């Protein structure tokens, strides 16, 4: 029987299992483990075919399902405790407990999503600047030096980093331009056209963004691969030098 399945991105094995349970309108307390295991394995197979990332967690769950399935085939132990007939623990019990726990948070996540949207719809204003200035206006510019400017700037830097650590400070996102490897390739080659030989470190000193560091490094590797640059280290622990290949 040929049938197509739309493969979605799942957050994990629990997410996938829930999808299957909902799709099949299964009673979570009485999961037909044979069917579900088969469908689960089929999904993983499809995901692999599509080159989607099937992480180890998905495979561990597959093993768990198979284990439960085999346990279900064993005859149930019935024993008597304090005069009451008690059945042994259902092999599905642990899985159901985990699924329900997960579902609880998945449900609450929807609520979080709504609230997050709300926050994105409100605006704050910048703090007013409160200055109590000297009245001696004429002498304001006397004896000003470039150092005053630099000192003021250094204080600004310090205040800013303090502020960022302040838990009450408004979350302010600064969207950076995404840097591409191509951009970085050109950047590095431009520098090398000027200088011929630079230190490995110098390429990274002005970069603040983690992603940009990674991209720069990848660009470096790419340039080595296509033999545009040469990377030299004379001795162990020496500075690494980068050179243009002519």
């Amino acid at each position, binding site marked *: 029987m040929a049938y197509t399945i739309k493969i979605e991105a799942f*957050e*994990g*094995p*629990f*997410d996938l299992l829930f999808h299957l349970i909902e799709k099949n309108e299964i009673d979570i*307390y*009485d999961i037909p483990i044979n069917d579900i295991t088969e469908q689960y394995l089929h999904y993983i197979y499809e995901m692999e075919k599509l080159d989607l990332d099937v*992480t180890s*967690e998905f495979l561990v*769950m597959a093993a768990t399902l198979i284990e439960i399935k085999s346990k279900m085939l064993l005859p149930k132990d019935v024993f008597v405790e304090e005069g009451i007939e*008690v*059945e042994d*623990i*259902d092999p*599905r*019990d642990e899985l*159901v*407990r*985990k699924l*329900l*726990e*997960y*579902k*609880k*948070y*998945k*449900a*609450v*996540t929807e*609520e*979080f*999503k709504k*609230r*997050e*949207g*709300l*926050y*994105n*719809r*409100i*605006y*704050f*204003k*910048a*703090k*007013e600047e*409160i200055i109590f200035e000297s009245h001696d206006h004429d002498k304001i510019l006397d004896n000003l030096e470039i150092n005053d400017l630099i000192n003021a700037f250094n204080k600004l830097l310090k205040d800013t980093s303090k502020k960022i650590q302040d*838990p*009450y*400070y*408004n*979350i302010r*996102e600064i*969207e950076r331009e995404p840097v591409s490897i191509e951009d970085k390739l050109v950047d590095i080659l431009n520098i090398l056209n000027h200088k011929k030989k630079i230190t490995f470190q110098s390429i990274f000193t002005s970069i603040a963004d983690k992603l940009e560091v990674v991209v720069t490094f990848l660009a470096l590797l790419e340039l080595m691969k296509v033999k545009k640059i040469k990377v030299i280290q004379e001795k162990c622990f020496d500075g690494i030098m980068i050179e243009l290949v002519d």
Partner: protein
Amino acid sequence: MDKDEIKSVLEAILFVWSEPISVKELSKALAVDVKNINNVLEEMINEYNFGKRGLQIIKMNDHYQLSTRPEHYSYIQKLVEPKQNKGLTQAALETLAIIAYKQPITKIEIEEIRGVKCDKAISTLQEKNLIEEQGRLEKIGRPIIYGTTLSFLKTFGLKSIEDLPDISEFKLLTQETNDIKHIFTKG
């Protein structure tokens, strides 16, 4: 100072300050005791909410801040640079929900609930200042304990952690879990 005057000064300070300000600081500036300030602010929050005002007072723990209302979003958006706030991913939100309700919690405990690794979600949440490390557990590996931050409260419009929606309302799942064994005996 009568109540109307306190309200008036509080409005002025919240406007000038624009960032979250603590009741303690407000109390100091006005020379009015903390309890009184809190009461007046609660009254003001209600007045702003019911008086069809353009602004609202947000409360987070013992801090207050002035902001616009979500319902006026579309008008303001026309005048200012579009916000580029991308929302959190499903993975990050799920992780955040678990941390919010189960804090203090370790990474392994989170991963047990979600069934997947959560390193990336956790580091995103830390970068956005929504969660923070709150110490280490004194057991093998000394795992880091996570909890939510004050920014978290603000972002999700909560006055405090107690303000989180009651998780038992979400389909009464905890109770059902307790019943599992009972139901299973029928099957």
